[in-house]
C-alpha cells in the first residue's frame, strides 16, 4: 500500500511517501491511522497532534470508517487551504 503525507503531516512523519504492507486486522482508515502512529516518533507526532487530519483513499476523500486494502493509495493531510 502506498501512503502519502502532505503539509505538516509530511514534515512530522519525515517523508512524503512510504510503502507499507498492512498487518492483519487493519481494515479501515481509522485502523490504519492507529497502526501508522506506532511506526516512529514522527508518525506518532503527526497523528497525535490533536489537530484535524483528513484522509483520501485512491484519491477520493474518505471517512475514518472507509475500507482500505493492500494496493490502495491512501493519503493523509490537514484540512485544505487552497484558493
Amino acid at each position, binding site marked *: 500500500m502506498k501512503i*502519502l503525507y*502532505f*503539509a*505538516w503531516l509530511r514534515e512530522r512523519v519525515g517523508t512524503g511517501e512510504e510503502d507499507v504492507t498492512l498487518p492483519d486486522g487493519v481494515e479501515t482508515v481509522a485502523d490504519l491511522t492507529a497502526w501508522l502512529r506506532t511506526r516512529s516518533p514522527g508518525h506518532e507526532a503527526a497523528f497525535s497532534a490533536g489537530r*484535524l487530519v483528513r484522509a*483520501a483513499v485512491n*484519491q*477520493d476523500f474518505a471517512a475514518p470508517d472507509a475500507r482500505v486494502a493492500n494496493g490502495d493509495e491512501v*493519503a493523509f*493531510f*490537514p*484540512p*485544505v*487551504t*487552497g*484558493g
Partner: protein
Amino acid sequence: MADIRVQAHDFDIGAETAKLSAARTDIGGIASFVGLVRGTASGRPILSMTLEHYPGMTERAMVAIGLEATRRFDLQGCTLIHRVGTLQPGEAIVLVLAAAPHRQSALDGCAFLIDWLKTSAPFWKKEQFQDGSEAWVDARETDDVAISKWTNPGA
C-alpha cells in the same frame, strides 16, 4: 468543457478569457475571479507563501467540479488554474473563469467554483515570515460556511 491546470508559473487572464470565448458568438458573459497573495497574515507581514498540492487527486477533483459546475449552472465553459510553489505578496494564486449565455449563470458558476477551490481542493498553504519562521495556514471556518451555501440550498 472544463480547462484545468495546476502550474508553478503565472497565468494571463486576458489570454485565458480570449481562449474561452474564441471562435464562438453564443457567450453572453464571462465571470472571473483572481486570488492574490496578501502581504500580511493576521496582521503580520509575510515574505512569501508556498503552495503544495496532491498531484493526481487535485487535478481529478478539479475536472470533476468543473463538470459539475458546467451542468449545474449551464456553463458554456470554465477555466480553473491554481498555482503551486513559492509566491510573493501581490502575485496571483488562482484563476476561475465561467462562461454562460446570461450573466447570472456565469456569476453563480464562478462563485461556486472559487468557493469549492477554497474549501475542498487538495492544496495547502504555508506562510514565510520576516523573522525567518514559517507556519501552515489553518483552514477557516467561514470557508466551510461559504461552501455550505451550495451543498445545502435550503440553509
